[in-house]
């Protein structure tokens, strides 16, 4: 189903390329070349996919429980902020401890931000879609505010933090490439989420609640407790995603460093049909698509925003297909 949606999206986008007077096959060839053409390109694609995998797997758990957490943008931004703060605050920490500490701070910040949304939802009954959406803007603005003040690099000309101490950087996975260890962490999280969803009591509660709230009530499952757990978990994963992007790619906090990541995570979760293990191919697909797009623009002059068109169309097609199947099951 997802493969068909991707194929349809590529076919529709080919028309757009043709309309601009370019050859779609040449353009897609350049896209492929830009994604997988060399070890360097592959390393960039894997790095790009890493935060998507982390945040995407969190969204998957939420959506499984019918919790529509679309607060990834804010949770990721604050995760990056917390990681930066810790890395700048304790530059003397030993070499392995500092990245671990920073990652932990990122996870904590993301979880707290999601927890705030969960609290407003439970206490005041405001739908989580609205709360998480509004908190996104606040979270991103907090990063801007801090970069203008305490954490900002003076005289940089752009809102960014000073470069982090080398001890805080995530180690490289393969020497002489940009590939950092984040992808391993992301893969572990994907597998753990898969096991948690299908092999633990927690996962059972999530699945029952998502499939039928009335059945969950009958089975004595507390909707509030499960709601809070998936929110905190996905917040922590999103926060980690932000921390990984800072510690592994930029080595500093930059304004807008994760724009669109949270929404891409939602797209990836859907593309994976809410299956944690399928987040792996879906996230990698998005990562490589985006690295390939810039190469495609350079090589054949097809504008790189075409990628967002492909992503958006894929989502619409997947959603439509999911809606149709759900409708048939009901009937």
């Amino acid at each position, binding site marked *: 189903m997802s493969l068909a949606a991707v194929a349809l999206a590529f076919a529709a986008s080919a028309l*757009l390329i043709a*309309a*601009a007077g370019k050859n779609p096959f040449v353009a897609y060839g350049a896209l492929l070349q830009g994604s997988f053409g060399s070890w360097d390109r592959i390393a960039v694609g894997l790095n790009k996919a890493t935060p998507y995998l982390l945040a995407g797997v969190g969204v998957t758990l939420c959506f499984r429980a019918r919790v*529509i957490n*679309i607060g990834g943008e804010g949770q990721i931004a604050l995760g990056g902020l917390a990681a930066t703060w810790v890395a700048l605050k304790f530059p003397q920490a030993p070499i392995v401890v500092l990245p671990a500490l920073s990652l932990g701070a990122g996870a904590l910040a993301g979880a707290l931000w999601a927890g705030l949304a969960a609290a*407003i939802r439970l*206490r*005041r*009954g*405001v*739908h989580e*879609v*609205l*709360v998480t*959406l*509004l*908190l996104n*803007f*606040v979270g991103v*603005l*907090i990063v*801007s*505010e801090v970069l*203008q*003040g305490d954490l900002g690099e003076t005289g940089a000309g752009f809102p960014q933090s000073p470069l982090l101490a080398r001890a805080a950087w995530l180690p490289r996975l393969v020497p002489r490439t940009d590939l950092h260890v984040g992808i391993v962490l992301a893969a572990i999280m994907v597998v753990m989420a898969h096991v948690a969803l299908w092999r633990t009591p927690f996962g059972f509660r999530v699945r029952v609640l998502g499939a039928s709230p009335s059945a969950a009530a009958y089975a004595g499952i507390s909707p509030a407790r499960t709601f809070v757990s998936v929110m905190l978990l996905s917040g922590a994963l999103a926060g980690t995603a932000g921390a990984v992007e800072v510690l592994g790619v930029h080595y500093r906090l930059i304004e807008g460093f994760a724009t*669109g990541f949270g*929404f891409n995570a*939602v*797209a990836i979760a*859907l593309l994976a049909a809410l299956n944690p293990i399928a987040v792996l191919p879906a996230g990698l697909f998005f990562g490589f698509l985006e690295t390939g797009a810039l190469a495609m*623009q350079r090589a054949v*002059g*097809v*504008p*790189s*925003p*075409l*990628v*967002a*068109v*492909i*992503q*958006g*169309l894929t*989502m*619409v097609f997947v*959603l*439509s*297909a*999911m*809606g*149709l199947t*759900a*409708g048939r099951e*009901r*009937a």
Partner: protein
Amino acid sequence: MPDAFVEFLSAAVRIATPLLFAALGGILSERAGVFAVGLEGMMLAGAFTGVVATYGTGMVAVGLLASVAGGMLLAAVVATATTRFRADQMVTGLAVNILALGLTSYLLRGFGARGEAPIIRVTTLPPLPVPWLGDLPVAGPVLFRQPLLTYGAVALTVGMFVFLVRTRPGLTLRAVGENPTAVFAVGGNPVRVRVAAVLAGGALAGLGGAVLSLQQVGTFTDGMTHGRGYLALAAIIVGRWMPGGALVGCLVFGAADALQLRVQALRLPVSSYVIQMLPYVVSLAVLAGLGRTARLPAAIGVPFVRERR
């Protein structure tokens, strides 16, 4: 009253205008039972088609029509996916927003050489002072010396109220949002009503985008709506799905934005980022305050499926 304050109020009204168009469009859609998360994308599409058509033909009227068409085009995607295919409304809205961002940026570069975005400039709509009323103190500059589309937004707010509360089609539309099965039972067609409501909502959101690009900025830039569609969504909820309430919500958000632009001139002791947060924090506070009394249309988010006999 000091000039700076009058100017601030006038700016608040100006800034609220695009939000109000989008919010009114969103009310149509949500009152009929379809979440309007796609407002952001529809605004962006309208902003784009409006500028391109105005630039191409030199006629603002054509540009405005094009912005209506641009908003409706995306609304058609939402309407098809959510009614025909019963796709999840919220996430479809999100998808459409990503799609609009990509499509407008891609097409804009299609006009330029070598995949770079060209700069398309059009003259912005000038203020149209109302004779006599425009000379009033305070109220004159704030209310009666505004550009065309601002008057349009206010008129539309009144019209929307009358439509929803005093007309038969308006009643049907609200009934579809509350209980589509009942509408079906008396011979109505809930799916058709929803499609029409989403399309009309897209048209208005597209006009909201035109306010941004044709009345305020005079060009199109990537993602120029910057979350205003989401803000309109918040205004709808804060205004409890009524046109008048949404108007108040939009004005409050407009005032916060106008204040943010004046932080330095007014030597306020806070940063502009903190003031930029205000609309979102205020919305959250109002929503939390309303709590469970902020009742959504009962059938919102639920696809209508005909029962089988």
